[in-house]
């Protein structure tokens, strides 16, 4: 019983990390159909920048803020300098640009920062909270709360605001979006800023748990991508559910079956889900008719 609970805690913690990354994917995807492979680097930048700002003497909250704003600026720059000039390019080309960007950012990070592994203190200490014989760290609660909060914000943005609709409209039909007066460049800039900011926030929240270094981005992006696809790309609900599910799957497999093949189990489940629901759990079917 306490064992199950412990696996559950582990799964939810890790799942919330994945969910945060997956949520970051949502906005850029919704604006442009592009899965931004540099999303993981945003997470890395959030963590690393906080570490270095903190080390430079800023109090932790301020350091985190600087990191988030700075990363958002990197996101905007990425859009302005690389995505916007390639306007009209096929989606695959844009994806390759984001891959190039992730290599570039990683390369820059190892120069600007360093190649060491870093962390900073957990926000509310390291004393585990004990529940029915299982334990969870306070930082995990921060991560979970962060994931839920970002989810709610995004969900409201996309369903309740006209700007959110404009973002969806931009990816759905860029030509038509311009014809109805949407400044699609601004929408893209905004999306990159938000996605990068969310990524950085994720980095800030998870670093005390996962630690960080210039190259953590890739794995996080990969897991976040898988989570987002499991839930259905573009839907905040899917990102949250996919992330948590993936985390739980890994924890349960590691706990009950085999730690060696826990990632395998996760992917097998993803394959099974996609077999039954080709759009993921919450993905919407394309409604184009012939």
């Amino acid at each position, binding site marked *: 019983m306490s064992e199950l609970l412990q696996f559950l805690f582990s799964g939810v913690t890790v799942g919330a990390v994945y969910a945060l990354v997956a949520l970051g994917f949502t906005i850029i995807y919704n604006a442009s159909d592009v899965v931004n492979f540099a999303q993981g680097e945003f997470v890395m930048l959030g963590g690393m920048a906080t570490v270095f700002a903190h080390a430079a003497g800023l109090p932790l909250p301020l350091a985190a803020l600087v990191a988030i704003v700075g990363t958002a600026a990197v996101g905007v720059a990425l859009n302005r300098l690389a995505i916007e000039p390639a306007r009209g390019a096929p989606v695959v080309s844009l994806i390759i640009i984001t891959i190039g960007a992730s290599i570039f950012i990683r390369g820059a990070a190892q120069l600007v920062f360093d190649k060491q592994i870093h*962390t900073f203190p957990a926000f509310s200490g390291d004393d585990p909270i004990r529940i029915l014989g299982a334990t969870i760290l306070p930082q995990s609660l921060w991560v979970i709360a962060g994931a839920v909060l970002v989810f709610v914000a995004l969900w409201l943005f996309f369903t309740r605001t006209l700007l959110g609709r404009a973002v969806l409209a931009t990816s759905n039909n860029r030509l038509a979006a311009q014809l109805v007066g949407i400044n699609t460049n601004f929408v893209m800039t905004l999306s990159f800023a938000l996605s990068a900011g969310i990524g950085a926030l994720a980095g800030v929240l998870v670093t005390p748990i996962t630690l960080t270094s210039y190259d953590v981005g890739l794995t996080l992006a990969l897991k976040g991508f898988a989570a987002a696809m499991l839930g259905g790309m573009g839907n905040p609900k899917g990102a949250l559910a996919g992330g948590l599910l993936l985390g739980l799957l890994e924890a349960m497999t590691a*706990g009950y079956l085999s730690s060696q093949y826990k990632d395998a189990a996760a992917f097998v489940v993803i394959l099974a889900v996609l077999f039954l629901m080709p759009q993921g759990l919450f993905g919407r079917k394309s409604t184009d008719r012939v």
Partner: protein
Amino acid sequence: EIKIGATLSATGPASFLGDPEAKTLEMLVEEVNAAGGINGEMLELVMYDDGGDPNKARTFATRLVEDDEVAAIIGGTTTGTTMSIIPVAEDAEIPFISLAGAVDIIDPVKAWVFKTPHTDRMACQKIFEDMQKRGVTKIGMISGTDGFGASMQAQCKGVVGDYGIEIVADETYDPKDADMTPQLTNIKNTAGIQAVLNPGFGQGPSIVTRNYKQLAVGLPLYQSHGVASKGFIDLAGVEAAEGVRLPAAALLVADILPDSDPQKAVVTAYRDGFEKKTGTPVSTFGGHAYDAFMILKGALEKAGGEPAAIRDAIEGTTGYVGTGGIVNMTAEDHLGLDLTAFKMLEIKNGDWTIVE
């Protein structure tokens, strides 16, 4: 002018190891040249970053041999990259000193291949020796699935019987995993367990150590030489790291070595030089590169720039005092270290202490 080549994993998953190695080599070549070179000849270091990719490592090794025409190669940060460089060095008959851990590199002995780090098998032996002393007979093991962790896991399983110890729980984790509590919970719940061993490098062991404390497992925890850097204690947290034991080279504990220790002078000098030059704390990995370079330097001094002569001179290294221990190579032993080269360390109050 003598050209020496290096292909290291300064970036990629093993950059943690490769980076200090690269910095060490650069520093040493500078020093040697500043001091007038070797027998009056300047050294030129041709260094490539293979990113931890064995295929790239092989290409760079080919490049070093065929295009740059170096006299010897240092490198192969990981076992995988090392193994793919070996055929190149053997074919071209160029001496090659590896910085990777696995015992397979020099066992069986290959004419042109040497290495400086202790083997993972030795680390296992050192750890089990210590466990045996403490009366431990049943342990749990949690290893990283990267090359380092997997290789050491296999080696430990191979020698554990010699010490009357049984591995009753055997778990793994991915090097980039964020949480290992499920695996540790299973280990904790395994009946009769008396200690836990964690072969791995990078961030994994830090997270294992934190989770270990979170779950209040309360048994002795052994880490491997893969975490032998000051950073480990910071990352795991002083509290969580308290009491953790691991085998490591003298380098880590330069300050607390008795003055009588022959390594003291060497390791203190290297550490001070490295930390002054790079501003980052020294690690044993940089030490491997230091030893490799110094052995090569010794050989060059003796033999000049001819590869075959260099090879013979390396093989003839005796009594070299390095960061990893005292090296005595022979035709049958291209490592030249024994178990005494390892110190068993324990973390107390956020610092290393020597057990014994």
